[in-house]
Each structure stands twice: as C-alpha cells, then as structure tokens.
C-alpha cells in the first residue's frame, strides 16, 4: 500500500507498483488535466509537482511517491485564486490546441517558485516542454508576465 497526497487529499493505492504516476492520476484519480504526450520524459505534457519539484509523471513509478505531496494542474490554483502562471496564460491567450499547456504551466509555476524574475536564458534552460502548435512566443511573454503578477502579489 502506497500513501501520498494529491492536491491536499490523502490517497491510498495498492495496485501495480510499476504503474507510472501519470496513469494513476488520469485513470484512478480521474484528474485528466495531466496529459500524456510521449511516455519517455521528453515532452513535459505530464508535468506535476512532487514535493514542490516539477516531475514528468509518465516516468515516475507510483511506488516511488510514497509519502509525497503531489500537485496537479487541477490543484495549482489557490481555491478561486488562479496561480499567477494561469492568470498570465489567460492574459496572453497562450493556448492553441491547449494540450501541452497544463504541462507548460506546471513547469513555469515551479520555475517561479525558485526564481521570481527569470531571464530569457532561465526560461530557455528550465522550460523544455514541447508545444506542437508553436505557442512559444506567447509562452515566453506569459512566463515574464506571470513572474510580474507573482511579484506584485507578494509585495
């Protein structure tokens, strides 16, 4: 039996220990905002936070998350208050098909938790998710804007 929390809720799992966290989240917990894109940690569509760090859940075996606190896109907002990245994404109207965007936002949220004023180079080095629709220009603007919103909120 593995115990962990997802978006603040305690969960117990006693199925197949090899199963990637991604499938637990999508199929068992019904949290479908976390997406499947490649299954080999390349695209970032499945990005979630594990104890505050960004992980690609398609390669995280569920057995390894015992005791961890997991946050998914569904749990990123603070109640009604959207996370600065979510707000910036709406302002810049980033998504096209939208499929990669939960992962992009989760990656951004983690970057902002470490660095509240990322440079373009910081963005290039830390956000390595794929967007097939090519929304990178708006993603970059939105990351800068999210950092601004975050700094404003904290000041």
């Amino acid at each position, binding site marked *: 039996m593995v115990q962990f929390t997802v978006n603040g809720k305690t969960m117990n799992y006693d199925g*197949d220990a*090899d*199963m*990637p966290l991604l*499938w637990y989240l*999508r*199929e068992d917990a019904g*949290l*479908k*905002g*976390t*997406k*499947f*894109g*490649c*299954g*080999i940690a*390349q*695209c970032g*569509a499945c990005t979630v936070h594990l104890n505050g760090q960004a992980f690609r859940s398609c390669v995280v075996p569920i057995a390894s998350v015992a005791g961890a606190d997991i946050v*998914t*896109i*569904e749990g*990123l*907002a603070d109640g009604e208050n*959207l996370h600065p*990245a*979510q707000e910036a*994404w*709406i302002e810049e*109207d*980033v*998504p*096209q*098909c*939208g*499929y*990669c*965007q*939960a992962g992009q*936002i989760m990656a951004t949220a983690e970057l902002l938790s470490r660095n509240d004023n990322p440079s*373009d180079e910081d*963005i*290039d*080095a830390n*956000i*390595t*998710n*794929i*967007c*097939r*629709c*090519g*929304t*990178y*220009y*708006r*993603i*970059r603007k939105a990351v800068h804007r999210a950092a601004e919103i975050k700094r404003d909120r904290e000041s």
Partner: protein
Amino acid sequence: MNAIFDRRRFLQFSLAGGALLIADAPLRYARASESSGEFLGDIGPYLKINPDNTLVLGAPSPEIGSGMHTSLPMLIAEELGADFATVSVKQMPIKLLTRPEGGYRWAYGVQGGGGSFTLRQNWQPVRHLAAVTRNILINAAAEEWSVPAGELHTEENHVVHASSGRRLAFSAIASRAAAKPFPEVTPDQEVDFKDPSDYSIIGKWQRSKGVEDVVTGKAMFGIDGELPGMLHAVMSRSPYFKGSVASVDDAAARAVPGVRHIITLDPPSAELSNSYIAAGVAVVADSLWAAMKARRLLEIEWDKGEGAGESSEALFEQMAEIQKEPGLEFAKDGEGRAALSSSGKVVEVTYELPLLAHATMEPMNCTVHARADSADVVAPGHSCGGMLVNLSRALGIEVTSINMISLRTGGSFGRRLRADMAVEAGLISRKVGAPVKLVWTREDDMGADWYRPQSRHILHAALTDDGGVSAWAHSACLATSASGDVDIPDVMRNTVWVDNYPRRLVDNFEVDVHHISWATPNGPWRAPMPTQHAFVVESFINELAAEAKADPLEFRLRLLGETRDMPYDDHGGPTYNTGRWAAVLKKAANEAGWGGRLRRRQGRGIAGYFTFGSYCAVVVDVEASRSNDIRVTRIVVAGDAGLIVNPNGFKAQLEGGVLDGLSTALRLKVDVEDGRAVQQNFDTYQFMRIADAPPVVETHLIQGADEVHGTGEIATPPLAPALCDAIYQATGKRIRKLPIGDQLKA
C-alpha cells in the same frame, strides 16, 4: 461527403427550463433529437438564451487549435447583436441526417471541416440564421412595445429602441419569440446583414473561448472522453507498412491481471485501406496500464509484406535515377523547357524534402461503442465526416445511426482527416461487444502515420541579361502509397499543381512529374502542397536573385509584375492576385527594415506564398556562430486572409505557423528503413523547444478582401525558404535538402 445545408430549413424556437432554445434544424429532426435522449446533448443546435440573458452558442465543428470555437461564434454574435463576453461556446454533437430527397446533411451547420475551410463554409449559413433570429427577436420586441420593427436594433443581448432609449433583454422576450410559428429560412431569402462598418465584435481582439478551462485542466480532450462501461485498448500494429501478423504468442500477455481480450486484426480490406493502415494485435483490458503492460509481453512475428526493404535513402537515389528522363508533362507554356537552351545564363538546383510525421500533441485515440446497428463515438475530431463514413463502412451500419461527440482536439495538422483510429476502435469494440477506448502511444502514432510524402525537385531557369526570368522548368518526383491506376494530378497535388506560381509569370514554363509507388502511407500535412512547393520555388527564387545580383524582394516584385488575377484551379482559387501577394511581401519587408545593414554572420531572408486563398510573407533574421550554430533572432510575418475576424486568433496562427515551419526545417524528418519508420518518439523526432524559438515574432495583418479564408496553414510554407536564405547570407551555405540538421557543420 457532400453534406451541405438544406435549401430550406426552419428555425425552431422553444422554451426549456426558462431558457430560449433556437434550433436551425427541420422539425422532424427536432423531434427525433428529443426522443433520442441525452447522447445528443442538452442544448439546441445553435443558440440558447439563458434566463440571466447570457448566451450559449453552438459550434458545429471541433476546436483543433485553430480558434474555430472563437471565430465562428464571433460571426454569430456579431450578426445577432450579442455581448461576446457573455457568450459561451458549446460543441454540438456530430451527426449526419438523411435528406428526404436522398443523400445526407449535417445536423448542425457544416461539421465535416478540414483544411482551412471550416470558417469559410460556415460563415454564410450561420450569419444568415443569426440575422433571421435577430429579426425575430426584434419583431417580438416591436409587438411588446407597439413600435415599428424598423426603429429597433440589437446590441449587447438587448433589443434597443434608440429614439425612446428603451432596452429589452433577449431573455425577457423569450416567451413571446417562442410562441411564434417557426420561420422558414432559405438561402435566397432577403435578409439585412449588418453593415461591416457597424461591426463591434468582428475585427476586434477577442480572447479565445475556453482558455480558462485549458489553464485549469478542466478542458476535456478526446483522450479524456469516456463511455459508460468502457474497456481500454492498445494495439500493436505491424511496424512494417502493409505488413501482417505471421504469428502471435500471447500467453504472457494474457496472464497480466485485468487483461480481457487479445484480438488479431487483419490487414485492411481494399475498401477500408484508405481509412485504416495496419494489421496488428489489440489488447483489451480493464485499465489502460494493464493493456499497455500486456502489450509489451506479446511476442509477434510479422510478415513484412510488400514494403519490406524500402528505404527513404534508397528512394532518393531511385528518384535521382528516374529524373534523368523527362516525366509526364504537367504544364507547358511557350517553348517550355526547350527555351532554356536558347537563353543566357541557366541555373540548375535540386531540392529534396523528407517524410514528415504529424505528431499531434494529443496522440491518436478514439472511444467507440459499436452495437449491431448503431454506434456511439467520442473522439478528438477534425474531419468528422470521414470518421462517420469510414466507421459506417467498417461496421456495416448506417452513417446516420452513428452518434458522435467531439471533445477538444489536441492538434491535427491534417492527421485527423484520416479515420484509422476510429475504424480500429470500432472493429475492436464490435469484437469484444463493449465500449472501448483505444489509445495510441507516441510510438504507435509516429510509427503508423500518414506521412507527408518524400519528394525531389530539379529546377532550371534561364536569366536574361537584365535579371529577368525567361524560362522556368520544374521536374518534380513524388513517392506515395497510391498504386495501380494513379490519378496523377490528384497525387501530385501533394507537392505541385499545374497552376502553381510562377506559371504565367514566365513566358516559357514547364512542369514535368514522376510518381513512384511505395508502401509508406501518406496524407496531408499542414498545407500539404504549399509546404513543399514554397520551399522549392521560393528557395530557387532566392538563388536566382543571388545569381542575378538582385535584391530578393525586388526580384519577386518584378516577377509578380502588375496587379492582376492569375488563374488558379485548386484550393483557394479560381484565381490568386499578384497585388495582394506583393502587398504581404512589402509589408513584411518594411516592418523588418528590409535593406538595412547587417553585421557579419547575420542574415535576413524573405519568402512569400499563396496558400488556399490566403497570402503570407515572412522575413527571418539569423545569426551564425563561428561554428555555424544558427540562432533565429526575429521573424516578421505579414498575412492577408481576407476578412480579419479575430486579430488575436489570426496572430496566434501566424506565430504558430512560422514556428512550426522553423521547427520542421531545423530537425524534423522520418527515415524509412526496411519498410518501417526509424523515428518513433520525441527523442529522435526533435521538435523545437522554447530555447530555439526567436524572442520576437512580429505579426502584421492585412485585410485584402471581404471574404473569409483560412489562417492556420498560411505561415508555415514561406518560413523555410526565408530561413535558408538568411542562413546562406550568414554562412555562405545553401540548404537544398531539409531538414537542415547538421548540414552546416560539414
């Protein structure tokens, strides 16, 4: 599928739970949908006015990332006089109905959209219905107030009597409107459309509908869909194109807990081969993970079939060999190729284009419940007509008895014009007698795609002493999986078309074509012909300009000549206009500071193209390091797609289109070896990440006409030729084979 609007239809007004539903369907269908229960959804086909006076608009076709769920509702909202901020959008069920006079029609607008035509096809019909609806609301208010209808207009979800200042919410006249007899709507009926100078929604920046759901993870994509009691399936497809299963040992796979069925699917019959690619073995289980795990334990021997031994490298050699002889004459003006010998300077260049995968971000998937004589489908849709028709064939059921829900679609780029994932899911569901969700992994998706086909092009042109072009000859060789009696114009449409630029701009002009049949499947890939043709022709024009020591912009403007319509008998025709083409080139150039001085190892390239009715030009700036690492520092784009519906969405499509072009030119190709695809996932099929994206992508919009054209495909074609010319200026190296890969390192 030629399902179009019925000539005559009725608007149906009804009250439900205090909301006014306005349906655009004939009565008999309205009744049918009531009795068929929940699967068809809970709102009227195109408009619902809630008691709180907010509106829900129905979208006929799915959102695939091109902004259709924003732009089409904008057209309705504008004509109706709605407050767009209060409008929410709901995807209508995808449904074909029988016409009394035979054939089929869509239940809700034009739902079979593909290519760039969805908005274009739906615009007139939805606008018409919206105008009729507006008049009904106005008439109801006129009755209420006892004033002439001519004194009233609508704005922000209200009917307004300007002279008295009275306003009536749409919701307040709902019951009066619903009591009216159903008005008949015919296409030739006179309706007053809003004057474009009064537009308050069209042409203004509008946020994409549904963005809040996307950023909070609430948006439901096809892969998130479910049917009650469904099982999960994955399929191990023949990795060899047109291969089949020789033997399967499934003992270990069957032992995985949760596995319910293991089924072999035969190679597609000739009838289905256009909608279904591969033979294989499907594993059906209680959970997706159990199915995936069991699939790994299958031991399958494949019969390689007719594609065995095929390789893309060898194919280029075969193309080179075959192109030594002239191909089938496709177009010829003046003396054609013969004029090359009598001219001054002749330039010859060969271009090679690789196979490409679509690799939509959301992998292929489909959920189907196939019953004896009907089916339910949940899918990420694109060309929904193709899915319905192919499923009906595969399952032997009436197309009208298939009920389909399209959820949001994680990209298509042409891939979801095919129905293979739906046909597979349908066949599996039929065999196991339960609803089945079939998910393709990325390896499945890239290993069994309908790839953009491989092609090779030899270009010749003769330059006159003053830098004009006196003769042009293009020999194109294309490989597709079409076999037998190949319809040459139709298959060649993947790469070249008889009316393609610069035909009729050069006096002596000739195109000849060769076609090679091989087993690797092919299909449309975002602007199928233009992405190939623009690279070849626009790259060649850049080379000719360099040979003529002319400015590439000036060279192009001279070639385009005076403003006139040129015949163009393909998508986006019947003509294209040289003036609109020149205008986007000039706009992009001006905004980019064309002609300005560049430093050493910097380059600036330009190209333009006409794609399916729209015009687009790009200017690309690059910097090369000493070791020829290329950095794109800026892209400037100008686009003209006729009427600008949503500038925000248009800009997004231009931005995404050029970045797709860049990503593709930099590193993307699929190699075929021994009849199978080498690249299977993003580790080897290396899409661009944000680090490769230029910090500036500047977009400029031109409204060159009043009609609506597509925006999603237009910016990709001109990117690669502009990029490659910029690279040439920065490094002195010509790229004539895509992708660029490590060619600059040699």
